[in-house]
């Protein structure tokens, strides 16, 4: 479980986050949603430790991350897997080497055991016979899947996914969403997905935090989401014609 307690962050004169409190549950796909520029990516970076909050704290199963010493932080980080919006695969390493990278850095396994583990992770995300290819030779969807394989290589307790569907076609997006949900159940991870893709929210979101103008505006599950009376949340959710039709259909039932 990850708890965010009173987190605020400012860059220069701009207050980006104000007093955010949220709980992200173990074994669930938790989502942080909001418009572009709402502060959700900054919140995610505060949670994973890439930004230090000006106020408040982030607890990883009770461990206040920003108060830990360097070595303790490193240990928590080894329990984190993250899929970046750009996949962030290392250009100079091939698919197998990318997935083996965290294992080589931290695991106490033999080379062959690392290779087996990486092959298993790649198989789990349906990447077969692509070990020797470099990231630039892969499609966007495949890069995401390799990114997921790398994120789960160390069997993480916490899985962060930043805009998993950005740049992907609808079919591939569904494949990625399903994969994230399956892996969350399989590994029992505390998964946090940062997205503004409502299709993804409706497919996989179990605990949803809506960020607006740097504040937590709403938190609930996807069933509560459609019934919410919150104006800003409704403006965000029903911005597309498709979602307005979904609402109409549900209310007409």
């Amino acid at each position, binding site marked *: 479980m990850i708890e965010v307690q009173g987190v605020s962050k400012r860059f220069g004169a701009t207050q980006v986050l104000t007093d955010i409190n949220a709980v992200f549950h173990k074994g669930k796909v938790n989502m942080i949603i909001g418009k572009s520029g709402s502060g959700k990516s900054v919140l995610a970076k505060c949670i994973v430790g890439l930004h230090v909050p000006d106020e408040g704290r982030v607890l990883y199963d009770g461990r206040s991350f920003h108060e830990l010493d360097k070595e303790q932080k490193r240990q928590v*980080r080894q329990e*984190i897997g993250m899929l*970046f919006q750009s996949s*962030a695969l*290392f*250009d100079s390493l091939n698919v197998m080497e990318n997935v083996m990278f965290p294992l080589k*850095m*931290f695991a106490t396994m033999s080379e062959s055991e690392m290779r087996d583990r990486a092959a298993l992770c790649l198989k789990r995300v349906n990447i077969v016979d692509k070990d020797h290819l470099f990231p630039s030779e892969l499609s966007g969807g495949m890069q995401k899947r390799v990114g997921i394989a790398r994120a789960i290589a160390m069997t993480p307790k916490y899985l962060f996914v930043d805009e998993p569907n950005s740049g992907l076609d609808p079919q591939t997006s569904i494949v990625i969403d399903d994969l994230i949900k399956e892996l969350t159940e399989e590994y029992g991870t505390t998964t946090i997905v940062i997205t503004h893709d409502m299709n993804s929210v409706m497919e996989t979101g179990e605990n949803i935090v809506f960020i607006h103008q740097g504040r937590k505006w709403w938190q609930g599950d996807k069933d509560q989401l459609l019934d919410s009376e919150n104006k800003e949340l409704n403006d965000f959710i029903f911005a597309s014609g498709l979602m307005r039709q979904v609402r109409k259909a549900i209310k007409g039932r």
Partner: protein
Amino acid sequence: MGILFHIGRYFLLLGETFSKPERLSLYWQRTIEEVDQLGVRSLGIVALLSVFMGAVITIQTKTNIDSPLIQAWVVGFAARQSTILEFSPTIISLILAGKVGSNIAAEIGSMRVKEQIDALDIMGVNSAGYLILPKVVASVVINPFLVIISMFLSIFGGWAAGVGTGIVSGADYIQGIQMSFDPYHVTYALIKTVVFAVVITTVSAYQGYYTQGGTREVGISSTKAVVYSDVVILILNYMLTQLLLI
């Protein structure tokens, strides 16, 4: 942001860079790769420059001291001294700042804008150490070899040009390069080379590591890496010369 901010952040980055590596074998492997990338692949340009610079030094020296009062071997002597004291350690380092420095800043800058450095940090890897330390070690190890090769080739280039054009005889040139040789001058040149190697790699890595934005900013970082490395090399060249030769 002020210069003091950058100097402070540069030294903090150095602190991170030289902290204990997570897995020594991986760092070692990367260091070997960097020796090839930063050193061996620079051999061609270093050799080419050295031969021609040696040739030019010899011809210019001869044309400027063409007097019956000055003995013929002085051409070889001047070529050797110019090469060992200044041309090979300093000019080659400035050239390497252009070639290697821009390469380092562009590589690390691209990794920053493509979130690959964030990925390393989140995994718990010391990204500064993993990316920068092997480059520093590789340059410190390989650059002195490049400079020694440059010294030989430059003196050879001077001989070839001098003898080839007939401005100095082979015997006079050889006598000149052997005249009053002080091995300390080579030590001085190698000390400068090592210091410049650290400057080139760390200043360029600093520019790349803190790149923000996109490809345009990577290009800007790359340019800044070369300019600042050159400026720091020139300042340190003066300071080291005063410190070590006077």
